């Protein structure tokens, strides 16, 4: 890591730059002599040039209406989906390495194949579809030489 402009620790330089930025954003710039000129210029450019995006009026009003409807449901004591709670759980699962193998029918498979999926496949095999075309395709497949 390169040394700070003051010749000291980079952390100290970061602290000095941070104080300068605080003052810049407070519109009361302090003495900038401890901050490298290119960093000062860049900070000023970023403050002035980075665009601020605003949502459209239509979107803002539509979302306000949707939130009002959800607020009404909460007030009425209804259960409402909690997408963030699910996201947090997904991340925790990722960290815990949830993609661990699962044993189904003596075969090690991925967790992506659910037990319900395996049960459906087993049921499907024992219950051929009723559609004539499906039965015909299966019959042809059975006759095909290996």
């Amino acid at each position, binding site marked *: 890591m390169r040394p700070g402009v003051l010749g000291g620790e980079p952390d100290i330089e970061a*602290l000095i730059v941070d104080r300068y930025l605080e003052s810049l954003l407070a519109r009361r710039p302090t003495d900038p002599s401890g901050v490298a000129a290119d960093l000062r210029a860049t900070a000023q450019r970023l403050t002035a040039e980075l665009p601020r995006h605003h949502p459209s009026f239509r979107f803002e009003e539509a979302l306000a209406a949707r939130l009002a409807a959800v607020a009404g449901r909460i007030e009425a004591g209804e259960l409402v989906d909690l997408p963030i709670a699910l996201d947090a759980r997904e991340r925790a699962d990722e960290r815990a390495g949830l993609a661990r193998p699962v044993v189904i029918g003596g075969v090690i498979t991925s967790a992506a194949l659910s037990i319900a999926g395996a049960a459906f496949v087993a049921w499907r095999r024992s219950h051929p579809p009723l559609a004539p075309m499906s039965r015909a395709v299966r019959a042809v497949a059975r006759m095909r030489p290996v």
Partner: protein
Amino acid sequence: MARPALGRTTARPEEVGRPRIAHLDRDRSLVTAAQADPARFESLYRKYVAQVFNYAVYELRDHHEAEDATERTFLSALTNLHRFEERARPDDGEGASTFRVWLFQIARNVVAERRRARRRRPETPLETALEAADPHDLEHAAVVRDEASAAWRAVGRLDGDRRRAVVLRFVHEMSTAEIAGILDRSEGAVRVLLHRALRSVAGDLRRDGR
């Protein structure tokens, strides 16, 4: 939340054994009102919708995806508001808002989920899409000019938390403590992030000759 929203992880000695009292949170009355009556969440929504949308645009670089992320953020905030606990303290600074930190933490999670979905389903980035826009659409052309600015592009080239720190600092004008709370880092780490990001952007702009 498991940790203080403004970046501290331990209580000070004088605070141990007595409840924390928040004096200065600028959103405290609005939050309390919304917790009592969810219909009053609208005040908080109106106050922060532009900020959350703006953050999402910088992260996702797609206005439609940003709208979607904004919607999910506020729906999540509303449905989880009863769990929010105010933690701002006097020396967190005048106007410190842990509600804003909490809201942006949600936005950050939502955006991360959108980015993961995008990796599974790649789409055209904003810059390319804008180049293909109707040349007679003046409003769109203004957006192209804005977003194609050197500063916008340089910030877009920063990676992960450096980019987020710069956007939160320079666009949303957040304090180091607030950024630390949102990014789940110490204030010292955020200072270093910002410093390195600034150096990187300075070098980028110099190379661009602008």
